[in-house]
Structures are given as C-alpha cells and as structure tokens.
C-alpha cells in the first residue's frame, strides 16, 4: 500500500500517512474551501488501510487552527481509527496544543469525549 502524503499550504494541513511507519501525522492549519473534498482521498485511503493495519499505531494531531467542517472530517478520521482499535490493534491518538491556546486544548478534550480510542493531550514545549 502506498503512503498518503500532502504538503501543508496556508489553508490545508500536512498529511503524512505512511503505512510502513507506525506514526501518522496531521499538522498545520485546516481551513480548506471544501473540507469534504480535501479529506475524502484520505478517508478513502484509511478505509483501505483498515483492512491491513500495523499492530501498533500512533496518530499525532498537531493542528494550529481548523474550521467547523474540518472538525467533522476529523471525527470521520478518528472513527476509522476507532475501527482499527476495536479490531484489537494498539492505537493512540496524540493531540498537541500550545500552552496559551486554550481553544485547541478544549477542542482536543471535546474529541476525547466522543472518540473511543486512547487519546492523549500533549502540551507543546517552548
């Protein structure tokens, strides 16, 4: 299975999903004009990945800012990981946020409440 990689732009995040590594990353800003169109290929990729995932996976979310429709897409992404976790794979979602960014911290906690996957809140240092 090929890796799914997208470089960050001022409006879209970096997506680094390499099936060979056990670490997936999403970082940057997520305010695309059409979030569904932007995240659809990734959701399709994850749908295929679910069939043959690694035993242990770490998913790092390092977002600075995201719009409402992106948050719905994030829920969809997390649901895919939920399926992997329910299938017995070791999986952790790490939500990174800046010390002074209370909004991002609270958003992470909101996701943590509805996603049934080990969810770690990590404060960025420095």
């Amino acid at each position, binding site marked *: 299975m090929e890796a799914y990689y997208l470089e960050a732009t001022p409006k879209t995040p970096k997506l680094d999903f390499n099936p060979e590594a056990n670490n997936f990353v999403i970082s940057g800003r997520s305010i695309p004009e*059409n*979030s*569904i169109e932007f995240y659809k290929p990734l959701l399709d990729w994850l749908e295929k990945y679910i069939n043959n995932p690694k035993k242990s996976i770490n998913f790092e979310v390092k977002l600075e800012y*995201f*719009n*409402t*429709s992106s*948050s*719905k*897409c994030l*829920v*969809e992404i997390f649901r895919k990981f939920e399926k992997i976790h329910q299938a017995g794979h070791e999986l952790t979602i790490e939500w990174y946020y800046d010390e002074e960014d209370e*909004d991002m911290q*609270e*958003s992470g906690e*909101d*996701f943590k*409440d*509805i996603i049934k996957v080990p969810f770690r809140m990590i404060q960025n240092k420095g």
Partner: protein
Amino acid sequence: MAKAVVQSDVFQAEIDFLHEVRALAEDQTIPEAKVKENYKALCNKYERLIGEAKLLTSVSDRLHSKLNEANEKLKKQFDEINKINDDLKVNNQLLQDTIDQLVKAKVGRKASSIVLLIAIILFIISEGLLEPLVEQEFGNDQIGFIFKLGIAILLKPIDVIVERYMMRKALKSNSSRVINH
C-alpha cells in the same frame, strides 16, 4: 445553493443511514427481533450524532468567539491608526509652518544683507561720482542731500522686492525637493 450542497456532504454518512433506516421502517416483512436490532443500531447512531453535534457546536462557538475577538482587535487597531494619522497631520502642518517661518527668516536676513550692499554701492556712487559732477555743473550742495534722501527712501521698496524674489525662489526649490522625494 453551493454552500447547501457542501453542508449536506459533511453529513453524507448520516443522510445515507437515515435513508437506510426509513426504508427498513417501511418494510413490513422484517421480523420483530430484527426490528429491535435495527432500533438499537439507530439509538447508537443517534447517540453518536448527539456527541458530534455537541462537538461541532462547541468548535463553532469557539471559532466564532475567536473571530469576534480578532474583529474587536482590528477595530481597536483601526481607531488607533486613525488617531495616529490625525496626530501626524497636525504635526505635519506644524512642521510645515515652522519650515516656512525659518525660510522666511533666512530669506529676510539675506535680503537685508543684499539691500545693505546695494545701499553702500549707491552711497559710494552718489558720494564719489554723482555729487561732485552735479555740484560742479549746478553749484548746489543741496543736491547731494536729495540724492542721499532718495537712496534712503528707495531702501524699503528694494528690500521688499529682493525679499519677494528670494522667497519665490526658495519656495520653488522647496517644492521641487518635495516632488523629488
């Protein structure tokens, strides 16, 4: 309209599920046990949707308050910029007035020096050249006094003319300097 399409896409999975459940609800042939199972699935989906609705609402509220804060900040900065701009305008006018006064004083000093020089030259011409000639010709020593009086009366108009000329020249060179900048 395009926005509405995008919004419905966001909830496409939920819309599909709703269609599925509606179709099942109209199906009279489903056994009771299956109906109960479907009902449970529907409850689970509904619970999940409530969680997502809560999340989307709080994310949206946070974004709204962030935008509001940014807007307030921009408004405040805009007012500050306007105030600074007004102060700059006043200071600029004051500066321009001071520059004009300085130029006027400088030109006035230069004009006085020139007029003094002209007066000395006229005095020398009158004393050394015109007076002996006129006295020799007419034999009247009062004429020398009239010449000096004439020079004294002419001093002020000459000063005004020289000052005006120099002021015009100074203003012209000032404005060309501003254009070049």
